[in-house]
């Protein structure tokens, strides 16, 4: 081992040990400091469902499943680097232990252990290929949102230097073995038994360019020391650089919000907040602050963001990047009892502009594509809460919030008219507060008030009736479920609505809840249990699918068109309901053609998170709904876009007028399809006649 030689009277092993202790101490000090900064955040339990978390960790960290997902083949560069890095962790561990003990005790090195040695050797090459590929992507074919920072360049160069010096050290070792063998000496500790194709090829190459064996051995020794030094330098540099995600990302994935749950923490205000105002970072939970450490600035979030795609000021990556600066500056200052440097209060509205925060439709595309499971949406909503507290609210949104405060709906309509949607319906709709029903239909504002959505609600009522479903509503006692109120950041108003709705629900006798609105569905299913709602909640496509499977949905006609289906964010990405609506579409005989962005990769219509209540911000060139319909127009022979959300219906009916395709696309609801296929429209015409 190179450490068996003495420098300045001491074994190289001693010097290596000193360097290792110093580097480890510097690393540990920084990491402890960063952990202490996280403790400035609010508490949040992320240690539930440990088995599920472990599986997520194995799949996404060890298996790199998110890295491979989507985009292109070039995404394989990261898994190659990561897996190489893992093998190198074993190799490096053996290197330091073996190097430090070498004068006294022999410890096998990775390159001396069959199979492992070969793997490390090949992975060194794989990592180099991965680096070349990722560098081409970063510096030549740069996708939007990917940054060319000095930090990234330094890390690429350091990793490349690590791999090259490792291979050179291998080449030196191989050459030394050959020299020993030529002298008739026995191979030392089995050295030479491992197949090291890259190291051997490099040694052969160095011989070919005229270097002597002794020179190659010396190059190997120097490379070994350079390799060890770079490793220690990397260890110290890592927690200061953007590549600190190497340390934090595995924890971030393990501690991430679980799929199809609601992890948006309640806001803290009033008495709760009194203690929290001392440090601006205390507004955020520790997991929100952790986003700042884990972001690798890959820019995927920005590329899938409907707001960014439509020209709005929002970049989810920039939001996290700005948070990072604030967390590091203010957090570290707070640890030293110094006043905030960046001032976390300025972060919201000044550093991150309010326009950017209001641009988010909370569609979660960024969260779902993020390889390290950063939680941009919760972060943005927490910042919106501050804007709402400060009254920095768009005029149109303010009007809607006032309407919700006064009338319990977003449509500025009298609460006494909520049940008017059912006026003159040919089928009865029970009042669940007056008589027991099996299924309580919670309509939501759009389904109860918006003319387009009311048309669908009336059809769905007739479908439910025809299928023999025992259903009723809360009538005028229902108020907005408040899903988007919560996502706008008006937590107090959401709580008020939830309390009123739960009180109204407590006066009704029912077994389960159904809703046509995915936003309402999400709020009732995930946000309402903490207010006391205990009944199961279903989307109407799930109920229709259930009736279909039970043979209770008599379909008389087959509908001939070719259609595509738009996955609503709050039904699909938020709750994993992808198949029920598709089964219904197929059952009614329509030919379903998928859009390129479907299921978990669906592209938001731009209505969520209260966006439907806001004015378009400056810079928006094409609204997300317009972009989505253009995607539909690329599909051959597709005449209809099928939706399962009243807000999608409203957004796309509007967008159809904007894009003015010929012939115009038809926006149809799943309920409407079933209504037609059951022959209820002709039945209605006959009744009228």
């Amino acid at each position, binding site marked *: 081992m190179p450490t068996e030689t003495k420098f300045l009277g001491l074994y190289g092993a001693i010097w290596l040990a000193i360097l290792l202790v110093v580097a480890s101490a510097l690393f540990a000090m920084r990491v402890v400091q960063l952990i202490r900064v996280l403790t400035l955040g609010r508490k949040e339990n992320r240690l539930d469902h440990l088995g599920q978390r472990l599986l997520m960790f194995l799949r996404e960290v060890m298996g790199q499943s998110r890295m491979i997902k989507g985009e292109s083949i070039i995404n394989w560069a990261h898994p190659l680097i990561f897996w190489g890095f893992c093998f190198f962790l074993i190799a490096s561990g053996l290197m330091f232990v073996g190097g430090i003990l070498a004068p006294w005790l022999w410890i096998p090195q990775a390159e001396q252990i069959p199979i492992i040695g070969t793997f490390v050797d090949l992975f060194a090459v794989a990592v180099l290929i991965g680096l070349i590929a990722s560098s081409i992507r970063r510096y030549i074919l740069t996708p939007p949102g990917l940054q060319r920072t000095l930090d990234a360049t330094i890390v690429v160069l350091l990793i490349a230097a690590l791999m090259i010096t490792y291979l050179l050290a291998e080449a030196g070792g191989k050459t030394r073995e050959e020299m020993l063998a030529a002298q008739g000496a026995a191979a030392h500790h089995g050295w030479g038994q491992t197949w090291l194709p890259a190291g051997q090829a490099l040694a052969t190459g160095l011989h070919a360019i005229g270097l002597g064996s002794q020179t190659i051995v010396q190059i190997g020794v120097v490379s070994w020391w350079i390799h060890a030094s770079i490793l220690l330098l990397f260890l110290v540099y890592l927690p200061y650089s953007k590549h600190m995600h190497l340390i934090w990302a595995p924890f971030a994935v393990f501690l991430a919000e679980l799929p199809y749950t609601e992890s948006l923490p309640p*806001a803290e*205000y*009033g008495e709760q907040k009194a203690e929290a105002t001392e440090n601006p970072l205390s507004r955020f939970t520790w997991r929100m602050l952790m986003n700042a450490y884990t972001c690798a600035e890959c820019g995927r979030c920005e590329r899938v963001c409907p707001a960014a795609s439509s020209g709005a000021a929002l970049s989810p990556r920039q939001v996290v990047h700005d948070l990072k600066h604030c967390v590091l500056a203010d957090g570290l200052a707070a640890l030293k009892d110094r006043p905030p440097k960046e001032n976390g209060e300025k972060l919201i509205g000044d550093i991150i502009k309010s326009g950017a925060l209001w641009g988010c439709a909370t569609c979660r595309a960024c969260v779902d594509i993020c390889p390290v499971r950063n939680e941009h949406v919760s972060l943005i909503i927490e910042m919106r809460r501050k804007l*709402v*507290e400060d*009254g920095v*609210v768009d*005029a149109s949104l*303010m009007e809607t*919030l*006032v309407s919700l*405060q*006064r*009338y319990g709906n977003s449509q*500025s*309509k*009298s609460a*006494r008219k909520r049940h008017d949607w059912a006026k003159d319906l040919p089928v009865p709709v029970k009042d669940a507060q007056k008589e027991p029903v099996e299924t309580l239909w919670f309509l939501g504002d759009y389904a109860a008030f918006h003319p387009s959505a009311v048309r669908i609600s009336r059809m769905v009522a007739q479908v439910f009736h025809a299928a023999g479903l025992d259903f009723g509503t809360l009538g005028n006692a229902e108020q907005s479920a408040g899903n988007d109120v919560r996502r706008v950041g*008006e*937590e*107090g*108003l959401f*709580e*008020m609505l939830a309390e009123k709705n739960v009180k109204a629900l407590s006066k009704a006798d029912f077994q389960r809840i159904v809703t046509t609105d995915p936003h309402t569905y999400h709020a009732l299913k995930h946000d309402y249990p903490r207010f006391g709602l205990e009944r199961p909640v279903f989307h109407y496509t799930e109920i229709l699918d259930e009736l279909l499977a039970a043979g209770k949905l008599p379909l008389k006609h087959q509908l001939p068109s070719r259609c595509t289906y738009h996955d609503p964010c709050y039904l699909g990405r938020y709750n994993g309901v992808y198949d029920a609506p598709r089964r219904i579409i197929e059952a009614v005989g329509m030919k379903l053609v998928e859009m390129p962005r479907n299921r978990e990769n669906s592209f938001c219509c731009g209505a969520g998170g209260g966006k439907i209540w806001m004015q378009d911000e400056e810079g928006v060139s094409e609204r997300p709904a317009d972009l989505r319909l253009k995607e539909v127009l690329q599909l051959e022979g597709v005449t209809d876009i099928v939706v399962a959300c009243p807000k999608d219906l409203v957004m796309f009916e509007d967008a159809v007028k904007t894009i003015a395709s010929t012939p115009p696309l038809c926006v149809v609801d799943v309920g409407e399809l079933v209504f037609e296929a059951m022959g209820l429209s002709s039945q209605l015409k006959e009744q009228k006649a």
Partner: protein
Amino acid sequence: MNIVVVVRQVPDLIEPLEIASSGDALDLDAASFIINESDDHALEQALLLKEAGGGGVTVVALDFGDVDNSLYAAAAKGADRIVKIAFDGDVPPPARESAALYAEAIKPLGADLVLVGVQAHDELDGGLSPFLAAALGMPYVGVIRGVKAGDAPGSVVACKEFPGAVMARMNVKLPALLGILGADQPPRYVPVSRIRGAMKTAQFEESAVAAAVAEPLLKVGGLSPPAPAARAEMLAGSEEEIAGRIVEILAEKGLVK
């Protein structure tokens, strides 16, 4: 600057108005009440003046309808004192008599500036603001769209709107009463959490003066819903027939030849 703002409750026009069986008043059970829009602007203007130059804002209101909601919201927005005036009767009296009630409550407050919405959609006998100015013995300027602190101490600069959108900037020596049409910025949004906080902490003061309502000079003889002058003509038939009829109507009106 000690600013007093008058806040009134008016029927919410989003609900259908119903006439009481007596035939001379609204059915209060069928109506709901909200803060008068221009009073909301007056409150906003008062808060802006306070934020810019200090002082205090006192909100004065008749104890009627859902006034507590409006007063908690005012406290949540930043009003320092809330004074409620109890009065005899089911509904507030007309502006002239209401002015007397407000004046009795406001006089002891030592106001430098009184801000009142210049209009309310339930006013029968004219605006409250000039009546109140007279009752308080204060100079009055109405139809104001924005107020700033004046250069001279004890004065403000009020932006008055004349017909035809002609604007005048007027130096007003205090004390004075201004009839507010609009504040320098739209009324701010106050989050429900803050209103709920105010519900726990805000204290309402009852007006110290035992207010007796004078007999109104104006009496309502009767109310009736507006009778439709003409019904809309609903066009029926095929698209061509409907389009043809539209062209005919436009031609009849002389809009197309």
